[in-house]
């Protein structure tokens, strides 16, 4: 058996580990454009903020490729997939045959396309190299940073730079950061916490151009304003890395459509992680939940299926946890449905209490939750959302700080 895994992120690595659990002899080839050892992508913001060193990024102490007997093909992007011939062609022209293929190619950060966006010190924040580049810029002295976007990446970048004592301005389109993840009350609490620590937020404005010599010096806004900035981080979201896939070859939506075994429309070709479009449990629709823990689990499940052990994936669930100065924020599932008609929402606490909890119910099924501080019980709520078990106990139990597992028995 010959398995080919495109991508050495956590999905790819976990797939390889799962294959090895099942089959000690199968050949595993892993292709990646990154030459750095498999590392913890979510940790890069910790490196930017300075709480963890860059050297701690790798996930494994030794050489994981050797330990798992993987043939690594690094520093190469896949140029083309020939699904019929079961061949992958690399950008350097080499072909690799496979019997089963896992597309765990992940996603690429979106760039901003305005005049001056090619200037130095304008970064995305996706890879360990991005953060190394950012650190280099920071070490040369950065006073004013500009963060574009109030999503997870923008918010994490802003948080990290603030912690370094850099003045940060954030441009967002929604009235508060993390609008995709949290509701207004929580969002305002987060905004307030960041502002209290020096963040400037501008709502509803965007950059029209950057000026500078070699590196960026200021940003022009559509409001007519000009902002001094010597570092820019673009957090405008990610797109699945699927350029090597021919149209009509494999069924795709926004990502690769997979069934519950994470198999694409072509047998023996699987997808996992940020490139895979799975079924979102909370939304009850197809969705890409481009988050680390999903990639980790999907990779493992895909690996089992590739080696012949049928394991189904119940679907994916958006979720995030972050610590923002004095706030611990956990958000999961459909925490902020646009149309609340069919939902019952319980919330309590808020800025004054210093803690907040919000539960979103669809009938008697828990569909989403936001927790600010006192997050230890979050995993139980996540399990309830994921398992879609009807909530039979008083809902106030779930709101209580004393909520514990025995109440679910």
């Amino acid at each position: 058996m010959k398995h080919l895994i495109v991508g050495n992120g956590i999905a790819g690595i976990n797939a390889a580990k799962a294959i090895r659990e099942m089959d000690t002899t199968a050949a595993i080839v892993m292709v990646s454009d990154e030459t750095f050892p498999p590392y913890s992508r979510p940790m890069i913001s910790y490196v930017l903020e300075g709480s963890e060193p860059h050297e701690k990024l790798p996930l494994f102490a030794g050489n994981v490729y050797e330990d798992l007997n993987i043939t690594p093909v690094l520093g190469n992007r896949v140029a083309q997939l020939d699904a019929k011939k079961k061949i992958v062609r690399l950008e350097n022209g080499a072909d690799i045959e496979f019997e089963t293929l896992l597309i765990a190619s992940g996603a690429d950060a979106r760039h901003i396309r305005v005049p001056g966006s090619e200037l130095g010190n304008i970064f995305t924040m996706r890879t360990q190299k991005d953060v190394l580049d950012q650190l280099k810029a920071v070490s040369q002295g950065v006073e004013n940073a500009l963060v574009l976007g109030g999503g997870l990446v923008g918010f994490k970048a802003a948080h990290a730079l603030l912690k370094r004592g850099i003045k940060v301005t954030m441009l967002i389109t929604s009235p508060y950061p993390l609008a995709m993840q949290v509701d207004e009350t929580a969002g305002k609490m987060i905004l307030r916490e960041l502002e209290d620590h020096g963040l400037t937020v501008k709502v509803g404005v965007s950059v029209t151009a950057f000026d500078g010599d070699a590196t960026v010096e200021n940003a022009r806004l559509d409001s007519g304003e000009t902002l001094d900035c010597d570092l820019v981080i673009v957090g405008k979201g990610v797109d699945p890395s699927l350029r090597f896939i021919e149209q009509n070859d494999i069924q795709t939506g926004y990502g690769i459509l997979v069934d519950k075994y994470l198999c694409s429309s072509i047998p023996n070709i699987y997808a996992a992680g940020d490139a895979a479009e799975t079924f979102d449990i909370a939304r009850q629709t197809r969705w890409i939940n481009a988050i680390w823990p999903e990639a980790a689990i999907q990779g493992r499940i895909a690996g089992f299926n590739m080696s012949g052990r049928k394991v189904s994936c119940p679907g994916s669930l958006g979720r995030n946890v972050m610590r923002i100065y004095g706030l611990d924020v956990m958000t999961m599932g459909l925490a902020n449905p646009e149309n609340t008609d069919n939902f019952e929402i319980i919330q309590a606490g808020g800025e004054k209490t210093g803690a907040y909890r919000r539960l979103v119910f669809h009938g008697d099924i828990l569909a989403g939750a936001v927790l600010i501080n006192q997050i230890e019980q979050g995993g139980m709520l996540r399990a309830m959302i994921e398992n879609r078990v009807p909530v039979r106990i008083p809902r106030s139990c779930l709101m209580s700080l004393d909520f514990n597992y025995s109440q679910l028995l």
Partner: protein
Amino acid sequence: MKQVIVNPEKCVGCMQCMLACAVAHAKSESLFAAVQETPKPRPRVHVGAGLFNQGFPNRCRHCDPAPCQLACLTGAIFRDAATHTVFINPDRCINCASCAMACPYGVLRFHEDTAAPPGKTVAVKCDNCDARVARGKIPACVEVCKTGALIYDEMGHALDQKTRQVARTMSSDAAAQGLPDTVALYNTLKQATVKAGTAIRR
């Protein structure tokens, strides 16, 4: 291999296991000295109250596969093959709380710990008292539990016991759940009291 097995119906909520656990993970391993230590030792087992305020010792199940391990961003959470114990390496832990989001039992806590670098907040949970077991002792929570809510046994043996107990219950007074009269009476009255009560969490 012996492991800690929980019989929740036998928990009377005395919280002895919490005290013993904190002490077992203190520098001094002595109750009277432990309360003076910095960082303050904290338990890894948490006795929560059920819907009728009955006790419930909640501890890490050392799941396999462990959701916390899969969710760990840094590889700090790992399984010891010999003891099947899921451990957290406090040096690798970055206190990101991803494990808390993954754990369906809510057993993770975040605080400073004697086993962690000084001043560092890390994720903490049950380690099956590996240090005690290595010295030939049994886990601290089991040692202090006098009701059999926490036992240290071979899983197979414990299951046999349980099966026999269930069989006895089926053949006699099912309503009493095979509990002694005193406990059955206590449970009945306790439930009635809670029903007449107003615990504000409900």
